């Protein structure tokens, strides 16, 4: 008696399941679509963290009378990831020296920033980690001229305890050593390839990272035994990584050019920022960060 009474819902459940079955493709496709859009959005902004710290000097904007004929307003500076520490300092000093001005910083891989500029992204100043990348911006008529403002070179970075006991470049060629470098397409990867060629060693990296900060992260976490990064990155990482310098004969240098952009919303302030980066004050910040003079 009892199971007869319960059979009803069992029988009813089957067609209900089929109804849902018939409708699911729409909802699946819709959800998948939004998931894909989400991925694109995440991938798109992962490399560029606008630094809020650049606004620290904005309290000075209350006293514009002290400034000479300085331009005011806001500029957006697109800068290579390796300039993060020094440009954050420089931007905040610039804001203090130019009351009423505000510098918005956007850091990312130089080539990615160049693609953004050529794609029409708004920006006033571009500081690149490579002359070649700057050339694409100049060729695209997004800037009319550029000026070199710093020089960087490469260094071996290892985890603080140096698990693979790396002492020189040749150690990176040992098959048991896990080495991480930048991908060929980004300036630090091209530089790594040059260094290995200069040293006449063959290194098979375990991973080719998207930018130099990703290489540093893997070294800091001890996931790799060594990596090739900029001298400035080792300095900026403090005691989180150890540095082993590369002899000048095997090393390579990268020149950093800066340019104000043709489509700058605030060309006057952009020009002042470029001048400031070349000034003794800003050059001292860059020297302290490990950059050499151009």
């Amino acid at each position, binding site marked *: 008696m009892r199971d007869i009474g*319960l059979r009803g819902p069992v029988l009813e459940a089957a067609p209900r399941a089929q109804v849902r079955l018939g409708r699911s493709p729409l909802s699946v*496709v*819709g959800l998948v679509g939004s998931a894909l859009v989400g991925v694109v959005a995440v991938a798109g902004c992962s490399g560029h963290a606008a630094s809020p710290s650049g606004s620290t000097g904005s309290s000075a904007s209350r006293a514009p009378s002290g400034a000479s004929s300085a331009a005011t307003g806001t500029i957006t500076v697109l800068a290579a990831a390796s300039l993060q520490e020094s440009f954050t300092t420089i931007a905040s000093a610039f804001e203090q020296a130019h009351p009423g001005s505000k510098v918005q910083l956007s850091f990312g891989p130089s080539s990615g920033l160049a693609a953004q500029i050529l794609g029409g992204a708004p920006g006033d100043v571009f500081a690149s980690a490579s002359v070649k990348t700057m050339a694409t911006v100049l060729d695209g008529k997004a800037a009319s001229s550029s000026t070199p403002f710093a020089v960087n070179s490469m260094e071996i970075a290892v985890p603080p305890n140096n698990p693979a006991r790396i002492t020189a470049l040749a150690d990176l060629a040992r098959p048991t050593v896990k080495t991480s470098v930048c991908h060929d397409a980004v300036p630090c990867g091209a530089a790594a390839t040059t260094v290995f060629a200069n040293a006449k060693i063959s290194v098979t990296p*375990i*991973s080719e990272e998207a930018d130099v900060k990703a290489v540093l992260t893997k070294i800091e976490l*001890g*996931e790799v035994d060594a990596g090739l990064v900029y001298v400035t990155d080792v300095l900026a990482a403090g005691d989180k990584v150890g540095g082993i310098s590369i002899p000048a004969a095997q090393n390579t240098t990268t020149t950093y050019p800066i340019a104000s952009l043709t489509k700058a919303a605030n060309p006057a302030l952009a020009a002042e920022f470029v001048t400031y980066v070349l000034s003794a004050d800003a050059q001292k910040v860059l020297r302290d960060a490990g950059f050499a003079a151009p």
Partner: protein
Amino acid sequence: MRQARDCRDVAGVPWQLGIPAAIGAGFLLLPLLALVVRAPWRSLPTHLGAPIVRDALRLSLVCASSAAAAAVVLGVPLAWVLSRPGWRGVGILRALVTVPLVLPPVVGGVALLKALGRNGILGHWLDAALGVTLPFTTAGVVVAETFVAMPFLVLAMEGAFRGIDPGLEEAATTLGASRWQIFTRVTLPSVVPGLIAGTVLAWARALGEFGATITFAGNSPGRTTTMPIAVYLAMESDPDAAVALALVLLAVAVGILIALRGRWLDTP
């Protein structure tokens, strides 16, 4: 009068729903359309002929499918546990397992390194005792993709489990079925649509996974360079090549979804 008005509405959709629905569909489809329209069609064959494309595509499909399988094996039981009413701590657990949904994938990758990396909490032990290191391996790609994709399946399945008429399971109990029998004979068959939807969703999320993968598994052609990573790196040097690669990924994903739809989802 009212009838005449209804007839003018497309397929009887009230305009209050029809207009936002059209804008919503356009919002999702326009960027995809733009990608197709602005694609470098003339140079497409050269871009696609590169061996790295074949490797990346194969790796993407293998890893996304493995991740979807892992998500089913681990996620379905987890969703079942979460769907049981009245268990203490389930609410907190439910919130925690969906964290990967809101966590920026790059942070997810760092978290995975801290847990399963060479110096990670569990990874340290795996390395010392078994000689297993997950970062920079294809298995590491599957781990990263599963981490990001599984919550999608868990959410879909939990909803499906909750939607089951409790009378069914009660009936099976009174008929003498064991708990495992109830799960396999009553519960599971009635959530098949949810299972398929959840698996496809997890698979698609795994296929497009980028942040956690490049952080945890790095980028090594043929081993960990999946399509999204290849697309990102191509963007650095040759945006046209990146668009070409993205088109391949899109075509494969849409093709598989349509094939699945015809084969599995429309079958009465």
